[in-house]
Protein backbone atom coordinates (compact mmCIF):
# COMPACT_ATOMS: atom_id res chain seq x y z
CA UNK A 1 0.00 0.00 0.00
CA UNK A 2 1.20 3.51 -0.82
CA UNK A 3 0.30 5.18 2.46
CA UNK A 4 0.66 4.11 6.07
CA UNK A 5 -3.09 4.29 6.61
CA UNK A 6 -6.40 5.05 4.96
CA UNK A 7 -7.83 8.55 4.68
CA UNK A 8 -10.11 8.15 7.70
CA UNK A 9 -7.18 7.36 9.98
CA UNK A 10 -5.22 10.32 8.55
CA UNK A 11 -8.16 12.60 9.35
CA UNK A 12 -8.44 11.30 12.91
CA UNK A 13 -4.67 11.53 13.46
CA UNK A 14 -4.75 15.21 12.48
CA UNK A 15 -7.73 15.81 14.79
CA UNK A 16 -5.81 14.26 17.67
CA UNK A 17 -3.03 16.79 16.97
CA UNK A 18 -5.55 19.64 17.08
CA UNK A 19 -6.04 20.15 13.32
CA UNK A 20 -9.41 19.94 11.54
CA UNK A 21 -8.53 19.06 7.95
CA UNK A 22 -10.62 18.18 4.92
CA UNK A 23 -9.76 16.82 1.49
CA UNK A 24 -9.83 18.71 -1.79
CA UNK A 25 -9.55 17.05 -5.16
CA UNK A 26 -6.47 18.11 -7.10
CA UNK A 27 -8.27 17.46 -10.41
CA UNK A 28 -11.81 18.84 -10.04
CA UNK A 29 -11.05 21.12 -7.04
CA UNK A 30 -14.15 19.99 -5.13
CA UNK A 31 -13.96 19.44 -1.38
CA UNK A 32 -14.76 16.02 0.03
CA UNK A 33 -16.20 14.93 3.35
CA UNK A 34 -15.98 12.35 4.87
CA UNK A 35 -12.41 11.48 3.85
CA UNK A 36 -12.07 9.04 0.97
CA UNK A 37 -9.45 7.15 -1.02
CA UNK A 38 -10.44 8.78 -4.29
CA UNK A 39 -12.65 11.66 -5.38
CA UNK A 40 -16.33 10.64 -5.48
CA UNK A 41 -16.98 13.41 -8.05
CA UNK A 42 -14.32 12.67 -10.70
CA UNK A 43 -12.57 9.50 -9.42
CA UNK A 44 -9.17 11.18 -9.24
CA UNK A 45 -6.79 9.66 -6.70
CA UNK A 46 -4.96 12.95 -6.33
CA UNK A 47 -6.45 14.34 -3.13
CA UNK A 48 -4.93 17.08 -0.99
CA UNK A 49 -5.49 17.80 2.68
CA UNK A 50 -6.34 21.38 3.63
CA UNK A 51 -7.06 23.03 6.94
CA UNK A 52 -10.82 23.44 7.17
CA UNK A 53 -11.87 27.09 7.35
CA UNK A 54 -14.07 26.06 10.23
CA UNK A 55 -17.04 28.22 9.36
CA UNK A 56 -20.41 27.12 8.13
CA UNK A 57 -24.15 27.21 8.67
CA UNK A 58 -26.65 24.90 10.33
CA UNK A 59 -28.32 22.88 7.54
CA UNK A 60 -30.61 20.95 9.87
CA UNK A 61 -30.99 20.33 13.59
CA UNK A 62 -32.75 18.09 16.07
CA UNK A 63 -33.00 17.97 19.84
CA UNK A 64 -32.55 14.40 20.97
CA UNK A 65 -34.64 13.88 24.08
CA UNK A 66 -32.99 12.07 26.96
CA UNK A 67 -33.92 11.69 30.59
CA UNK A 68 -32.21 14.25 32.88
CA UNK A 69 -30.59 11.44 34.88
CA UNK A 70 -29.00 10.13 31.66
CA UNK A 71 -27.57 13.57 30.83
CA UNK A 72 -30.58 15.43 29.49
CA UNK A 73 -31.51 16.63 26.00
CA UNK A 74 -28.77 17.25 23.46
CA UNK A 75 -28.34 18.67 19.99
CA UNK A 76 -27.46 16.83 16.78
CA UNK A 77 -27.00 19.00 13.71
CA UNK A 78 -25.90 18.86 10.11
CA UNK A 79 -23.45 21.63 9.31
CA UNK A 80 -22.75 22.90 5.81
CA UNK A 81 -19.14 24.08 5.75
CA UNK A 82 -18.15 27.03 3.56
CA UNK A 83 -16.12 24.53 1.51
CA UNK A 84 -19.47 23.12 0.33
CA UNK A 85 -19.51 19.83 2.22
CA UNK A 86 -21.86 18.72 4.96
CA UNK A 87 -21.04 16.95 8.22
CA UNK A 88 -22.85 15.77 11.31
CA UNK A 89 -21.90 17.55 14.51
CA UNK A 90 -23.39 19.23 17.54
CA UNK A 91 -23.76 22.81 18.78
CA UNK A 92 -22.14 23.76 22.07
CA UNK A 93 -22.68 26.81 24.23
CA UNK A 94 -26.45 27.04 23.74
CA UNK A 95 -29.59 25.12 24.61
CA UNK A 96 -30.23 22.35 22.05
CA UNK A 97 -33.60 23.78 21.00
CA UNK A 98 -32.11 27.27 20.41
CA UNK A 99 -30.18 25.93 17.43
CA UNK A 100 -31.84 27.14 14.23
CA UNK A 101 -31.37 26.24 10.58
CA UNK A 102 -29.35 28.90 8.76
CA UNK A 103 -27.43 29.98 11.87
CA UNK A 104 -23.77 30.87 11.22
CA UNK A 105 -21.44 28.64 13.19
CA UNK A 106 -17.73 28.11 13.73
CA UNK A 107 -15.84 24.91 14.50
CA UNK A 108 -13.57 23.98 17.34
CA UNK A 109 -12.01 20.75 18.45
CA UNK A 110 -13.46 19.86 21.80
CA UNK A 111 -11.07 18.98 24.59
CA UNK A 112 -11.67 15.58 26.02
CA UNK A 113 -13.90 14.15 23.28
CA UNK A 114 -11.53 15.27 20.51
CA UNK A 115 -14.57 15.87 18.29
CA UNK A 116 -15.22 18.70 15.89
CA UNK A 117 -18.07 20.65 17.49
CA UNK A 118 -19.58 24.01 16.59
CA UNK A 119 -20.54 27.23 18.32
CA UNK A 120 -22.63 30.14 17.15
CA UNK A 121 -20.42 32.49 15.11
CA UNK A 122 -20.12 36.18 15.99
CA UNK A 123 -22.18 38.78 14.12
CA UNK A 124 -19.11 39.71 12.05
CA UNK A 125 -19.22 36.41 10.14
Amino acid at each position, binding site marked *: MEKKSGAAAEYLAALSEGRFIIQRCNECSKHIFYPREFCPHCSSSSLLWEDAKGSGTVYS*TTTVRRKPEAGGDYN*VALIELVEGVRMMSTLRGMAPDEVK*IGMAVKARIEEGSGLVVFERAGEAL
Partner: protein
Amino acid sequence: MSPRDLRGKVAIVGVGTAGCGEAPGYSDIELLALAAKAAVTDAGLQMSDMDGLCTANLNAAMWPLSVVEYLKLRPKFTEGTNIGGSSFVAHLLPSMLALEAGICDAVLVCYGSAQRSAPFSRKDVQRARGLLDPSPFEAPYAPFNPPSSYALIAARHMYQYGTTRRHLAEVAVAARRWAQLNPDAFARDPLTIDEVLKARMISDPFSKYDCCLVTDGAAAFVMVRADRAKALPNKPVYVLGNATAVWHRNVSGMDDLTVTPSKESGERAFAMAGMTVRDIDVVQTYDAFSINTILALEDLGFCKKGEGGPFVEDGGIAPGGKLPVNTNGGGLSCVHPNMYGAFATIEAVRQLRGDCGERQVQGAKIALVNGNGGVCAASQSTAILGSAEVL
Protein backbone atom coordinates in the same frame (compact mmCIF):
# COMPACT_ATOMS: atom_id res chain seq x y z
CA MET B 1 -35.14 -6.89 -23.53
CA SER B 2 -36.33 -3.96 -21.45
CA PRO B 3 -38.01 -3.80 -18.04
CA ARG B 4 -41.27 -3.16 -19.91
CA ASP B 5 -41.08 -6.73 -21.30
CA LEU B 6 -41.46 -8.05 -17.75
CA ARG B 7 -44.65 -6.09 -17.08
CA GLY B 8 -47.34 -8.44 -15.79
CA LYS B 9 -45.29 -11.59 -16.43
CA VAL B 10 -45.28 -12.56 -12.75
CA ALA B 11 -48.04 -12.62 -10.16
CA ILE B 12 -48.23 -12.75 -6.38
CA VAL B 13 -50.48 -15.74 -5.70
CA GLY B 14 -50.19 -16.26 -1.95
CA VAL B 15 -49.68 -14.09 1.13
CA GLY B 16 -49.30 -14.83 4.83
CA THR B 17 -48.51 -13.09 8.09
CA ALA B 18 -47.82 -14.39 11.60
CA GLY B 19 -47.27 -13.05 15.09
CA CYS B 20 -48.07 -9.46 14.16
CA GLY B 21 -48.08 -7.32 17.30
CA GLU B 22 -46.69 -9.36 20.16
CA ALA B 23 -45.39 -12.93 19.94
CA PRO B 24 -43.48 -13.55 23.16
CA GLY B 25 -41.53 -16.79 23.24
CA TYR B 26 -41.02 -16.91 19.47
CA SER B 27 -37.82 -16.26 17.53
CA ASP B 28 -37.35 -14.49 14.19
CA ILE B 29 -37.04 -17.74 12.25
CA GLU B 30 -40.07 -19.32 13.92
CA LEU B 31 -42.29 -16.36 13.06
CA LEU B 32 -40.89 -16.36 9.52
CA ALA B 33 -41.66 -20.07 9.15
CA LEU B 34 -45.26 -19.58 10.26
CA ALA B 35 -45.79 -16.76 7.76
CA ALA B 36 -44.07 -18.76 5.00
CA LYS B 37 -46.32 -21.76 5.64
CA ALA B 38 -49.40 -19.52 5.59
CA ALA B 39 -48.34 -17.89 2.29
CA VAL B 40 -47.57 -21.20 0.57
CA THR B 41 -50.88 -22.66 1.75
CA ASP B 42 -52.72 -19.54 0.59
CA ALA B 43 -51.11 -20.00 -2.84
CA GLY B 44 -52.41 -23.57 -3.04
CA LEU B 45 -48.85 -24.88 -3.28
CA GLN B 46 -46.46 -26.99 -1.18
CA MET B 47 -43.31 -25.80 0.59
CA SER B 48 -41.40 -28.24 -1.64
CA ASP B 49 -42.62 -26.25 -4.68
CA MET B 50 -40.62 -23.23 -3.52
CA ASP B 51 -37.47 -23.33 -5.65
CA GLY B 52 -36.71 -19.62 -5.31
CA LEU B 53 -36.09 -17.72 -2.06
CA CYS B 54 -35.78 -14.04 -1.16
CA THR B 55 -35.15 -13.09 2.45
CA ALA B 56 -33.21 -10.73 4.70
CA ASN B 57 -32.84 -10.01 8.41
CA LEU B 58 -31.25 -7.03 10.17
CA ASN B 59 -29.26 -9.14 12.60
CA ALA B 60 -27.84 -11.87 10.35
CA ALA B 61 -25.63 -11.19 7.34
CA MET B 62 -26.09 -14.73 5.98
CA TRP B 63 -29.79 -15.03 6.82
CA PRO B 64 -30.80 -17.05 3.69
CA LEU B 65 -28.74 -19.95 5.08
CA SER B 66 -30.86 -20.06 8.22
CA VAL B 67 -34.09 -19.93 6.23
CA VAL B 68 -33.05 -22.61 3.73
CA GLU B 69 -32.12 -24.95 6.56
CA TYR B 70 -35.21 -24.30 8.68
CA LEU B 71 -37.67 -24.65 5.79
CA LYS B 72 -35.63 -27.48 4.19
CA LEU B 73 -35.53 -25.73 0.82
CA ARG B 74 -33.16 -26.34 -2.10
CA PRO B 75 -33.56 -23.06 -3.97
CA LYS B 76 -32.27 -22.67 -7.51
CA PHE B 77 -32.55 -18.91 -7.00
CA THR B 78 -31.51 -17.24 -3.73
CA GLU B 79 -31.73 -13.49 -3.23
CA GLY B 80 -30.47 -12.14 0.10
CA THR B 81 -29.94 -8.50 -0.77
CA ASN B 82 -30.43 -6.41 2.34
CA ILE B 83 -30.88 -2.69 1.74
CA GLY B 84 -33.10 -2.24 4.79
CA GLY B 85 -36.86 -2.40 4.99
CA SER B 86 -37.31 -1.81 1.26
CA SER B 87 -35.60 -5.15 0.57
CA PHE B 88 -38.76 -7.21 0.17
CA VAL B 89 -40.13 -4.79 -2.41
CA ALA B 90 -36.72 -4.70 -4.10
CA HIS B 91 -36.79 -8.52 -4.27
CA LEU B 92 -39.63 -8.36 -6.81
CA LEU B 93 -37.62 -7.50 -9.94
CA PRO B 94 -34.83 -10.07 -9.43
CA SER B 95 -37.56 -12.67 -8.79
CA MET B 96 -39.31 -11.69 -12.03
CA LEU B 97 -36.04 -12.10 -13.93
CA ALA B 98 -35.40 -15.51 -12.38
CA LEU B 99 -38.95 -16.73 -13.01
CA GLU B 100 -39.11 -15.41 -16.56
CA ALA B 101 -35.69 -16.91 -17.38
CA GLY B 102 -36.92 -20.27 -16.14
CA ILE B 103 -34.28 -20.45 -13.42
CA CYS B 104 -37.03 -21.29 -10.94
CA ASP B 105 -40.81 -21.74 -10.91
CA ALA B 106 -41.98 -20.36 -7.55
CA VAL B 107 -40.35 -17.70 -5.38
CA LEU B 108 -40.99 -17.38 -1.65
CA VAL B 109 -40.29 -13.92 -0.23
CA CYS B 110 -40.24 -14.09 3.56
CA TYR B 111 -39.38 -12.10 6.66
CA GLY B 112 -39.78 -12.46 10.41
CA SER B 113 -38.76 -10.50 13.48
CA ALA B 114 -39.35 -10.87 17.20
CA GLN B 115 -38.02 -7.34 17.71
CA ARG B 116 -40.53 -6.36 20.39
CA SER B 117 -40.23 -9.51 22.49
CA ALA B 118 -36.52 -10.19 21.90
CA PRO B 119 -34.53 -11.08 25.03
CA PHE B 120 -31.92 -8.40 24.24
CA SER B 121 -32.26 -4.62 24.37
CA ARG B 122 -31.98 -1.98 21.71
CA LYS B 123 -28.73 -0.89 23.39
CA ASP B 124 -27.28 -4.39 22.97
CA VAL B 125 -28.10 -4.31 19.27
CA GLN B 126 -26.63 -0.83 18.80
CA ARG B 127 -23.41 -1.85 20.52
CA ALA B 128 -23.05 -4.91 18.30
CA ARG B 129 -23.83 -2.97 15.13
CA GLY B 130 -21.46 -0.17 16.09
CA LEU B 131 -18.66 -2.72 16.27
CA LEU B 132 -19.44 -4.71 13.12
CA ASP B 133 -20.82 -1.95 10.90
CA PRO B 134 -19.46 1.35 12.22
CA SER B 135 -20.56 4.82 11.14
CA PRO B 136 -17.42 6.66 12.27
CA PHE B 137 -18.38 10.18 11.14
CA GLU B 138 -21.85 10.20 12.70
CA ALA B 139 -21.83 7.80 15.66
CA PRO B 140 -19.63 10.05 17.87
CA TYR B 141 -22.46 12.63 17.92
CA ALA B 142 -24.96 10.00 19.13
CA PRO B 143 -27.91 10.56 16.79
CA PHE B 144 -30.78 8.48 18.21
CA ASN B 145 -31.30 6.52 15.02
CA PRO B 146 -33.39 6.00 13.09
CA PRO B 147 -35.57 8.79 14.62
CA SER B 148 -32.86 11.48 14.65
CA SER B 149 -31.89 11.12 10.99
CA TYR B 150 -35.51 11.34 9.85
CA ALA B 151 -35.99 14.22 12.32
CA LEU B 152 -33.18 16.12 10.58
CA ILE B 153 -34.92 15.45 7.26
CA ALA B 154 -38.26 16.63 8.67
CA ALA B 155 -36.74 19.78 10.19
CA ARG B 156 -35.23 20.72 6.84
CA HIS B 157 -38.51 20.03 5.04
CA MET B 158 -40.31 22.29 7.52
CA TYR B 159 -37.68 25.02 7.01
CA GLN B 160 -37.79 24.89 3.21
CA TYR B 161 -41.49 24.33 2.62
CA GLY B 162 -43.36 25.49 5.69
CA THR B 163 -44.43 21.98 6.61
CA THR B 164 -45.71 21.96 10.20
CA ARG B 165 -45.86 19.51 13.08
CA ARG B 166 -49.61 19.54 12.53
CA HIS B 167 -49.04 18.22 8.98
CA LEU B 168 -46.90 15.42 10.39
CA ALA B 169 -49.60 14.69 12.97
CA GLU B 170 -52.18 14.38 10.17
CA VAL B 171 -50.18 11.43 8.83
CA ALA B 172 -50.14 9.71 12.22
CA VAL B 173 -53.86 10.29 12.77
CA ALA B 174 -54.75 9.06 9.25
CA ALA B 175 -52.78 5.87 9.88
CA ARG B 176 -54.61 5.38 13.17
CA ARG B 177 -58.00 5.90 11.56
CA TRP B 178 -57.22 3.18 8.99
CA ALA B 179 -55.94 0.91 11.80
CA GLN B 180 -59.28 1.32 13.54
CA LEU B 181 -60.86 -0.36 10.50
CA ASN B 182 -58.34 -3.23 10.63
CA PRO B 183 -58.95 -5.83 13.35
CA ASP B 184 -55.35 -7.07 12.94
CA ALA B 185 -53.72 -3.67 13.59
CA PHE B 186 -51.69 -3.32 16.78
CA ALA B 187 -52.59 0.28 17.77
CA ARG B 188 -56.31 1.02 17.41
CA ASP B 189 -57.09 3.46 20.23
CA PRO B 190 -58.49 6.81 19.08
CA LEU B 191 -55.80 9.40 18.41
CA THR B 192 -56.17 13.14 17.80
CA ILE B 193 -53.87 15.75 16.24
CA ASP B 194 -53.53 17.43 19.65
CA GLU B 195 -52.54 14.18 21.32
CA VAL B 196 -49.78 13.70 18.72
CA LEU B 197 -48.56 17.27 19.25
CA LYS B 198 -48.55 17.03 23.05
CA ALA B 199 -47.04 13.56 23.36
CA ARG B 200 -43.56 12.86 24.68
CA MET B 201 -40.91 14.16 22.28
CA ILE B 202 -38.36 11.68 20.90
CA SER B 203 -36.16 13.71 18.54
CA ASP B 204 -37.62 17.06 17.49
CA PRO B 205 -39.88 17.55 15.57
CA PHE B 206 -41.09 13.99 16.32
CA SER B 207 -43.20 12.96 19.26
CA LYS B 208 -43.70 9.27 19.90
CA TYR B 209 -46.71 9.16 17.56
CA ASP B 210 -44.59 10.37 14.64
CA CYS B 211 -42.47 7.22 15.06
CA CYS B 212 -43.43 3.74 13.88
CA LEU B 213 -44.43 0.99 16.24
CA VAL B 214 -41.96 -1.58 17.58
CA THR B 215 -43.76 -4.91 17.19
CA ASP B 216 -43.09 -8.54 16.43
CA GLY B 217 -44.32 -10.00 13.18
CA ALA B 218 -43.65 -11.99 10.05
CA ALA B 219 -44.77 -11.71 6.44
CA ALA B 220 -44.36 -13.85 3.34
CA PHE B 221 -45.62 -14.00 -0.21
CA VAL B 222 -45.30 -16.33 -3.17
CA MET B 223 -44.69 -15.42 -6.81
CA VAL B 224 -45.11 -17.54 -9.94
CA ARG B 225 -45.22 -16.84 -13.69
CA ALA B 226 -48.51 -15.35 -14.90
CA ASP B 227 -49.52 -18.41 -16.95
CA ARG B 228 -49.34 -20.66 -13.90
CA ALA B 229 -51.01 -18.09 -11.63
CA LYS B 230 -54.35 -18.48 -13.42
CA ALA B 231 -54.57 -22.13 -12.34
CA LEU B 232 -54.10 -21.35 -8.64
CA PRO B 233 -56.96 -20.73 -6.19
CA ASN B 234 -56.53 -16.99 -5.50
CA LYS B 235 -57.10 -14.02 -7.74
CA PRO B 236 -53.56 -13.30 -9.03
CA VAL B 237 -52.03 -9.89 -8.34
CA TYR B 238 -49.68 -9.01 -11.19
CA VAL B 239 -46.42 -7.12 -10.83
CA LEU B 240 -46.69 -4.36 -13.45
CA GLY B 241 -43.58 -2.45 -12.46
CA ASN B 242 -40.77 -2.46 -9.93
CA ALA B 243 -37.66 -0.34 -9.55
CA THR B 244 -35.21 0.26 -6.75
CA ALA B 245 -32.98 3.25 -6.01
CA VAL B 246 -30.15 3.28 -3.47
CA TRP B 247 -28.64 6.68 -2.82
CA HIS B 248 -26.64 6.87 0.43
CA ARG B 249 -26.29 5.43 3.92
CA ASN B 250 -25.94 8.37 6.32
CA VAL B 251 -28.14 11.44 6.55
CA SER B 252 -24.96 13.52 6.19
CA GLY B 253 -24.43 11.78 2.84
CA MET B 254 -27.71 13.00 1.32
CA ASP B 255 -27.48 15.55 -1.50
CA ASP B 256 -30.82 17.15 -0.58
CA LEU B 257 -32.56 16.16 2.66
CA THR B 258 -35.97 16.80 1.16
CA VAL B 259 -35.65 14.51 -1.89
CA THR B 260 -35.64 10.73 -1.47
CA PRO B 261 -34.74 7.83 -3.80
CA SER B 262 -38.47 7.30 -4.51
CA LYS B 263 -38.09 10.13 -7.00
CA GLU B 264 -35.98 7.76 -9.12
CA SER B 265 -37.57 4.41 -8.22
CA GLY B 266 -41.05 5.81 -8.78
CA GLU B 267 -40.25 7.19 -12.23
CA ARG B 268 -38.72 3.89 -13.32
CA ALA B 269 -41.52 1.76 -11.84
CA PHE B 270 -44.20 3.91 -13.50
CA ALA B 271 -42.33 3.72 -16.83
CA MET B 272 -42.15 -0.08 -16.60
CA ALA B 273 -45.87 -0.29 -15.80
CA GLY B 274 -46.76 2.30 -18.45
CA MET B 275 -48.77 4.20 -15.87
CA THR B 276 -48.89 7.47 -13.94
CA VAL B 277 -50.05 8.50 -10.48
CA ARG B 278 -53.52 9.08 -11.90
CA ASP B 279 -53.90 5.32 -12.41
CA ILE B 280 -53.26 4.45 -8.76
CA ASP B 281 -56.27 3.44 -6.64
CA VAL B 282 -54.47 2.75 -3.37
CA VAL B 283 -51.00 3.46 -1.94
CA GLN B 284 -49.02 1.45 0.60
CA THR B 285 -45.91 3.45 1.49
CA TYR B 286 -43.41 2.64 4.20
CA ASP B 287 -44.16 5.08 7.04
CA ALA B 288 -41.23 4.55 9.38
CA PHE B 289 -41.91 8.14 10.50
CA SER B 290 -44.68 10.57 9.69
CA ILE B 291 -42.38 12.56 7.37
CA ASN B 292 -41.85 9.45 5.19
CA THR B 293 -45.41 9.52 3.91
CA ILE B 294 -45.21 13.21 3.01
CA LEU B 295 -41.88 12.73 1.21
CA ALA B 296 -43.19 9.69 -0.68
CA LEU B 297 -46.34 11.49 -1.86
CA GLU B 298 -44.14 14.29 -3.20
CA ASP B 299 -41.33 12.21 -4.70
CA LEU B 300 -43.71 9.74 -6.35
CA GLY B 301 -45.57 12.65 -7.93
CA PHE B 302 -48.92 12.60 -6.10
CA CYS B 303 -48.24 16.27 -5.35
CA LYS B 304 -45.48 18.79 -6.00
CA LYS B 305 -42.34 18.99 -3.88
CA GLY B 306 -43.17 20.88 -0.70
CA GLU B 307 -46.93 20.33 -0.99
CA GLY B 308 -47.06 17.03 0.90
CA GLY B 309 -48.14 18.81 4.09
CA PRO B 310 -51.21 20.49 2.56
CA PHE B 311 -51.96 17.22 0.67
CA VAL B 312 -52.47 15.29 3.93
CA GLU B 313 -54.39 18.13 5.67
CA ASP B 314 -58.00 17.59 6.75
CA GLY B 315 -57.81 13.82 6.49
CA GLY B 316 -56.48 13.87 2.92
CA ILE B 317 -55.09 10.33 3.20
CA ALA B 318 -57.42 9.06 5.95
CA PRO B 319 -60.51 6.89 5.28
CA GLY B 320 -62.82 8.98 3.09
CA GLY B 321 -59.98 11.27 1.98
CA LYS B 322 -58.75 12.04 -1.51
CA LEU B 323 -56.20 9.18 -1.67
CA PRO B 324 -56.26 5.98 0.41
CA VAL B 325 -52.78 5.57 1.88
CA ASN B 326 -51.60 2.80 4.22
CA THR B 327 -54.96 1.16 4.59
CA ASN B 328 -53.78 -1.42 7.15
CA GLY B 329 -52.67 1.38 9.50
CA GLY B 330 -49.06 1.29 8.24
CA GLY B 331 -45.92 1.05 10.30
CA LEU B 332 -47.28 3.84 12.49
CA SER B 333 -50.36 1.95 13.71
CA CYS B 334 -50.58 -1.59 12.26
CA VAL B 335 -47.28 -3.44 12.49
CA HIS B 336 -43.56 -2.63 12.38
CA PRO B 337 -41.12 -5.39 13.23
CA ASN B 338 -37.79 -3.75 12.19
CA MET B 339 -38.42 -4.04 8.43
CA TYR B 340 -41.89 -3.36 7.00
CA GLY B 341 -41.56 -3.76 3.21
CA ALA B 342 -43.20 -7.19 2.95
CA PHE B 343 -46.17 -6.03 5.06
CA ALA B 344 -46.82 -3.07 2.75
CA THR B 345 -46.72 -5.43 -0.24
CA ILE B 346 -49.16 -7.84 1.38
CA GLU B 347 -51.66 -5.09 2.21
CA ALA B 348 -51.57 -4.02 -1.45
CA VAL B 349 -52.24 -7.61 -2.56
CA ARG B 350 -55.12 -7.94 -0.10
CA GLN B 351 -56.66 -4.69 -1.38
CA LEU B 352 -56.45 -5.90 -5.00
CA ARG B 353 -57.93 -9.27 -4.03
CA GLY B 354 -60.78 -7.49 -2.25
CA ASP B 355 -59.98 -9.17 1.07
CA CYS B 356 -59.88 -6.05 3.25
CA GLY B 357 -63.30 -6.01 4.89
CA GLU B 358 -64.22 -2.69 6.45
CA ARG B 359 -61.10 -0.96 5.14
CA GLN B 360 -61.52 -2.22 1.55
CA VAL B 361 -61.00 0.44 -1.12
CA GLN B 362 -63.95 -0.28 -3.39
CA GLY B 363 -62.99 -1.28 -6.91
CA ALA B 364 -59.24 -1.09 -6.29
CA LYS B 365 -57.45 -2.46 -9.36
CA ILE B 366 -54.02 -0.81 -9.21
CA ALA B 367 -51.90 -0.39 -6.09
CA LEU B 368 -48.58 1.32 -5.52
CA VAL B 369 -46.16 -0.08 -2.95
CA ASN B 370 -43.23 2.04 -1.83
CA GLY B 371 -40.57 0.46 0.37
CA ASN B 372 -38.08 2.43 2.42
CA GLY B 373 -34.78 1.30 3.88
CA GLY B 374 -32.01 2.49 6.19
CA VAL B 375 -32.01 5.20 8.84
CA CYS B 376 -32.54 8.06 6.38
CA ALA B 377 -34.46 7.02 3.24
CA ALA B 378 -31.25 5.38 2.07
CA SER B 379 -32.88 2.93 -0.30
CA GLN B 380 -36.37 2.87 -1.74
CA SER B 381 -38.17 0.47 -4.00
CA THR B 382 -41.43 1.19 -5.79
CA ALA B 383 -43.80 -1.44 -7.18
CA ILE B 384 -46.99 -1.10 -9.18
CA LEU B 385 -49.33 -4.06 -8.70
CA GLY B 386 -52.53 -4.73 -10.58
CA SER B 387 -55.41 -7.14 -10.99
CA ALA B 388 -56.08 -9.07 -14.25
CA GLU B 389 -58.35 -6.29 -15.64
CA VAL B 390 -55.42 -3.89 -16.01
CA LEU B 391 -52.92 -6.24 -17.66
